[in-house]
């Protein structure tokens, strides 16, 4: 019987098998400032060494300001965290793109961009959206700080094997429907716990037709479906994307690697613990209305009425969510008007996302009711590319602010925040209470939908724009 992609990659990395667990070898360790200080401290305290310095790529992203980088970080506590990463990388001699390096950016944008993410790898980072890198046929997963320390010291993790789930999406996407909409509609269907304990492989003709950027967006959101690992088989698009990236193999090694990588797909007769099929052609632009990514609806529909839920826990969570969001049951999605717009985050801040958003903006201006519209590129290199293409000018003349790269208002650890009660169309991945600022209200959407929301001041069906 054939085996799945997840198992193929997993089996390559098993150092030892114990009764319930495996000691799994880790190829790549991405590090950022928030979840690493305590791990480095642990290494120091125990007098341990770092097993493989070359496996590490570090970059500050969560705390960095998105405004002028020549001024020091204003928040003294944020500054300590970024400085601590600098110090740790210097002390242990690790590759880091510092805040003012043009290669700096969100760790999950930087990894693939540098060719630091390669097919067949095991990749970890103290960040749940590490699932992003699974788009390259890798096992990539978020870990906690104790595990960060474990990988630093041993290059291994003690893990259980996940169950496998395959989500097959077939059919042509409608015009203006994106990978983000696929992700949100899947989460709406299986719930935020739907993928718990599973590695989700996405396949089918719709997935094949996605660009690498789109595939990253989809795998990025696997964790919002509860799955630590999301992955997609390797094809020529994967190879093309990696080619010539700074850290990708070159010459003879490249040829060898390529041959190996093209085999990184699930066998035809592979068995999965569960399987779901979705008709990609039916997916409409999605907007979340609540405080969990599973509280999502199509642009053409209405907010559900909690009284109609069969399960009383669901009724009460819907009620709590609607109260927090200050929304009434059965409000049509296209009647929700907004105050702020955020285009950015590791979900949707790559060049393709910015192009798509700029395309919607064109020569139009943002609506009067929009207090702030931010575009935050995922990395310094994305920013440079966008500026070469003149995208920054499109955004700026429409009234958007064009910022320096980082996590920014995805989690509002820096100065970019929603005020109490403000409503935001956001291309990020989490709409939890307070995520973008205390009392802030987040609606997750695609970059195109966010751009349109900025122009029209409310959510509109972008399919009707053309």
């Amino acid at each position, binding site marked *: 019987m054939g085996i799945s992609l997840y198992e193929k990659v997993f089996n390559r*990395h098993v150092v*030892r098998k114990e009764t319930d667990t495996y000691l799994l070898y880790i190829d790549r360790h991405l590090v950022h400032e928030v979840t690493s200080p305590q791990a480095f401290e642990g290494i120091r305290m125990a007098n341990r060494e770092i097993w493989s310095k070359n496996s590490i790529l570090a970059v500050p992203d969560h705390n960095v300001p998105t405004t002028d980088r020549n001024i020091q970080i204003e928040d003294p*506590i944020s500054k300590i965290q970024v400085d601590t990463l600098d110090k740790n990388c210097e002390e242990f001699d690790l590759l880091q793109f510092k805040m003012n390096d043009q290669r700096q950016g969100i760790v999950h944008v930087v990894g693939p961009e540098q060719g630091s993410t390669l097919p067949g790898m095991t990749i970890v980072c103290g960040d749940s959206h590490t699932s992003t890198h699974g788009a390259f046929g890798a096992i990539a997963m*978020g870990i906690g700080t*104790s595990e960060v320390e474990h990988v630093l010291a041993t290059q291994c993790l003690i893990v259980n094997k996940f169950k496998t789930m395959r989500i097959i999406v077939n059919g042509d996407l409608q015009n203006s429907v994106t990978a983000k909409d696929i992700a949100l509609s899947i989460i709406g269907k299986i719930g935020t716990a739907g993928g718990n304990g599973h590695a989700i492989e996405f396949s089918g003709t719709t997935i094949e037709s996605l660009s690498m950027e789109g595939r990253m967006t989809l795998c990025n959101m696997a964790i919002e479906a*509860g799955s630590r690992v999301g992955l997609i088989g390797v094809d020529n698009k994967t190879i093309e994307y990696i080619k010539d990236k700074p850290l990708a*193999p070159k010459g003879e090694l490249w040829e060898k690697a390529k041959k190996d990588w093209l085999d990184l797909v699930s066998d035809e007769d592979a068995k999965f613990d569960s399987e779901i099929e979705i008709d990609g052609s039916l997916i409409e632009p999605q907007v979340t209305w609540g405080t*969990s990514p599973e509280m999502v609806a199509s642009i053409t529909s209405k907010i559900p009425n909690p009284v109609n839920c069969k399960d009383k826990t669901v009724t009460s969570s819907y009620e709590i969510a609607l109260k927090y969001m200050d929304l009434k049951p059965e409000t049509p999605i296209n009647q929700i008007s907004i105050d702020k717009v955020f285009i950015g985050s590791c979900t949707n801040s790559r060049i393709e996302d910015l192009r798509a958003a700029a395309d919607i903006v064109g020569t139009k201006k943002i609506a009067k009711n929009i207090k702030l519209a931010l575009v935050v590129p995922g990395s310094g290199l994305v920013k440079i590319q966008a500026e070469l293409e003149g995208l920054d000018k499109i955004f700026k003349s429409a009234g958007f602010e064009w910022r320096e790269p980082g996590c920014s208002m995805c*989690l509002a650890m820096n100065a970019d925040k929603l005020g109490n009660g403000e409503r935001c169309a956001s291309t990020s991945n989490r709409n939890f209470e*307070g995520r973008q600022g205390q009392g802030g209200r987040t609606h997750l959407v695609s970059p195109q939908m966010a751009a349109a929301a900025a122009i029209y001041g409310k959510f509109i069906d972008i399919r009707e724009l053309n």
Partner: protein
Amino acid sequence: MEPLNLHKGIVIPLDRANVDTDAIIPKQFLKSIKKSGFGPNLFDEWRYLDHGEPGLDNSKRKINKDFVLNLARYKNGSILIARENFGCGSSREHAPWALLDFGIRVVIASSFADIFYGNCFKNGILPITLEKTIMDQVFTKVQNKVGYEITVNLEKQKIYDDSEIAHFEIDSFKKSCLMDGLDDIGLTLKNKIDIQNFEKKYQEIFPWLKGG
């Protein structure tokens, strides 16, 4: 890490599903470079009526009198119960650090998010998964009895009040680490030779991955 085997404590009911890590410990507190001191800010946005920031004197803040953690009857509680998908969201270990710092040693829910679940064990917190119907019963009992306590026996994988409530599942490795308070880095490093041998072979087969 403090070992955990037999634990008896007052139960705190948090009757919500999808309690996320942003709720457990909001991001502004993630700026600390330490592992301790997060307890006063556990569930900060639900527990206080004003906005919390690191360094504030929490005793001077306005508290939300209705939130369970602020109710006298649950004072000194060490067992938190909640609904499904507890701990969803980010990988921040600050979430279990905050629970532990507050005094929580056991969390019982009908399901957990994977990363949070694993992070608990690294910090001496036992997450227990019970069926929804049993969770309903426990929630009712807590409501009906002030000072309701549960005893957890990890070795036997059982929880009790006056009588047995349920048996729970847990994998043997996690169980023994928690019971003995083991440092798993130390354990892994006992296999150093295995890792080195693996690495050598691995780099021969996949030379393009060598040294990143």
